[in-house]
């Protein structure tokens, strides 16, 4: 496939859960691309649709979910394929690491076999070679004594080590795209940093693309090229990570950034809160999903969903009727300016 073709492109994708009395829209009008060798961050609160998006891409959404629109993986339309071919194709192209390594690994099977399994499933390789590949990967992800560890069971490893094993398993088919779905949420900060560093190193060394899904803006901030902010099943802001963090245009992104406590703030700083609750699937607002909680919402916000607009940087897009002004300096990430000021 050609190099400038994006590894993943979702066009007008939507997900619906069939339910009574009416179907529930989990995701609507999802439009994004992941270029080769780049990392995309997907952020959002619980219920925003992050995991459903990932599952739809992987083709592992529950049977009650209807996925519409178009998903192009490495230039191929996934929905034009037969289900069996599709699963095969996705399995070879995409590796995924889930949040909880304990539930992703089978406790009764040695970890090495679980890694090699995918390799034997997708490529017709002899048992010995699969084993060798698995051991090689265990070494890559930083497991000491990989030959011995091959035969260990999941409970022999700590949470961070299990997550490393999951990363090894996701790499066995040489994927072009690696998806980390809240892969470090269950880990300690120090271990989280190690695992994130590992993911980033692997992505860069193997020239893969990566999707980093997280509820934590800090996890995504320094480690992705582009960022997609989901809210209530809609993409509310999408653009280069540095641009979105320095100059968020959607009011939700801005509110989310200022609701986070920063280590640079003095003790007992009052945090900004976002009033109200995220929208429930059953009764979504008619217009902008954020309108009921937004301080600047007016007439059209409550009735029509805003279209995607483009900022000064054409790659920076946001869906808001009354977007925040384009400011030059780092307006919201006050931590950076504070630190800079203190350094002088």
């Amino acid at each position: 496939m050609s190099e400038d073709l994006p590894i993943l492109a979702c066009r007008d994708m939507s997900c619906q859960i069939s339910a009574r009395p009416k179907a529930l829209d989990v995701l609507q009008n999802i439009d994004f691309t992941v270029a080769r060798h780049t990392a995309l961050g997907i952020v959002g609160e619980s219920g925003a649709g992050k995991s459903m998006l990932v599952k739809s891409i992987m083709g592992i959404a529950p049977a009650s979910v209807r996925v519409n629109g178009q998903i192009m993986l490495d230039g191929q339309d996934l929905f034009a394929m037969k289900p069996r071919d599709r699963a095969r194709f996705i399995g070879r192209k995409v590796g995924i690491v889930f949040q909880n390594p304990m539930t992703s690994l089978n406790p009764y099977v040695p970890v090495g076999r679980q890694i090699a399994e995918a390799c034997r499933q997708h490529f017709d390789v002899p048992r010995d070679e699969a084993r060798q590949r698995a051991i090689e990967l265990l070494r890559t992800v930083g497991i000491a004594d990989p030959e011995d560890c091959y035969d260990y069971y999941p409970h022999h490893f700590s949470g961070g080590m299990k997550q490393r094993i999951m990363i090894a398993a996701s790499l066995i088919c040489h994927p072009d795209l690696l998806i980390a779905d809240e892969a470090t949420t269950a880990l300690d900060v120090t271990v989280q940093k190690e695992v994130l560093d590992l993911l980033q190193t692997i992505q860069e060394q193997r020239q893969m693309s990566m999707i980093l899904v997280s509820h934590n803006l800090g996890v995504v901030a320094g480690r992705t090229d582009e960022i997609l902010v989901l809210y209530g099943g809609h993409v509310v802001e999408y653009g280069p990570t540095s641009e979105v963090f320095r100059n968020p245009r959607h009011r939700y992104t801005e509110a989310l950034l200022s609701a986070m406590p920063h280590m640079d703030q003095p003790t007992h700083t009052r945090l900004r809160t976002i009033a109200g609750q995220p929208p429930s699937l059953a009764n979504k607002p008619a217009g902008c999903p954020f309108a009921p909680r937004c301080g600047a919402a007016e007439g059209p916000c409550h009735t029509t969903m805003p279209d995607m607009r483009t900022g000064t940087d054409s790659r920076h897009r946001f869906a808001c009727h009354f977007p925040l002004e384009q400011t030059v300096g780092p307006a919201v990430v006050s931590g950076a300016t504070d630190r800079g000021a203190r350094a002088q």
Partner: protein
Amino acid sequence: MTNTRLPVAGTSPSRLLEIENLSVHFSRSGKLMRAVDGVSLHVAAGETLGLVGESGSGKTTIGRALLRLLPEANTQWQGSIRYQGTDLASLSRAGMRGMRGRMQMIFQDPVSSFNPRRRIEDIVAEGLVIQGVPKAERRTRVEAALADVGFALADVAGRKPHQFSGGQCQRIAIARALAVQPDLIVCDEPVASLDVSVQAHVINLLQDIREARRLAMIFISHDLAVVKNVSDRVAVLYMGKVVEMGSGEQIYDRPAHPYTRKLLEAVPVVDASRKLRPAADQQAIPSRIRPPSGCAFRTRCPRAVARCGEEEPILTPAPRGQMVACHFPHDETAPFSTARQA
């Protein structure tokens, strides 16, 4: 907003809670695990003490030991916990029950700390029933406690926990703790399971209540940014021991212990101005059952020398005023945050 209530060596008249040399050991299948090992802490009235550390560092065990909520089987604990002069170890079960009228706890997962089949007003009133508050008074106190966390009793009466979101449940858990009018609340990861926008709400709420009621808090969290925001003083725990303790500014701006620096470096910072360079180094966390000799952190410490393996460092005053347990503490004058910036 610099905090001046720094700990002064010796005794302070306003000390609400004093923990001295607390050790908690769990024994499982013949192996002994020192979950907490010789920890001494104190909390003044109206003060918030933050406890930070990785999982397994003993944060929760300390919190539970304070309220005597540790399992009885296979657990030994030593040391003294004095609450306004009363030694908790000397109290009978009934005495401890009375003591819990002055000390309360909020847990990480509010949904699982509620009985799903009970009504909200009964959940909030439960502490009052145990404390023997007369029925006539209970209703007003439940109403007041719910009002403090932003609920009207009339709106929530008769509803069950599953009808509330995670953030709302956590507010109800705070109301349950407040209803008995305690002087001290142990908050064990109260915001860990909440979304960012909801988390800000709960933190602000806890701050308001703390100010209004002059409430002391022990705030246990693995999130260093949250602890910085709420705490007057911070104690950093590593493998059951306090390795550094001081005011928020001391710990965050001039951390002396290499472990504190490592923790702070690992916090994901919302700063997208440059892309992070992944570090290749990683060290295994030592076993809790066979901790390393000397300083427990030496296996992961960049500064460790032979002495660290032979002699265990004890908490001593560091150059910047905080207490630190390290043979070679950092004493860089530059605030730590500038080092992060570079």
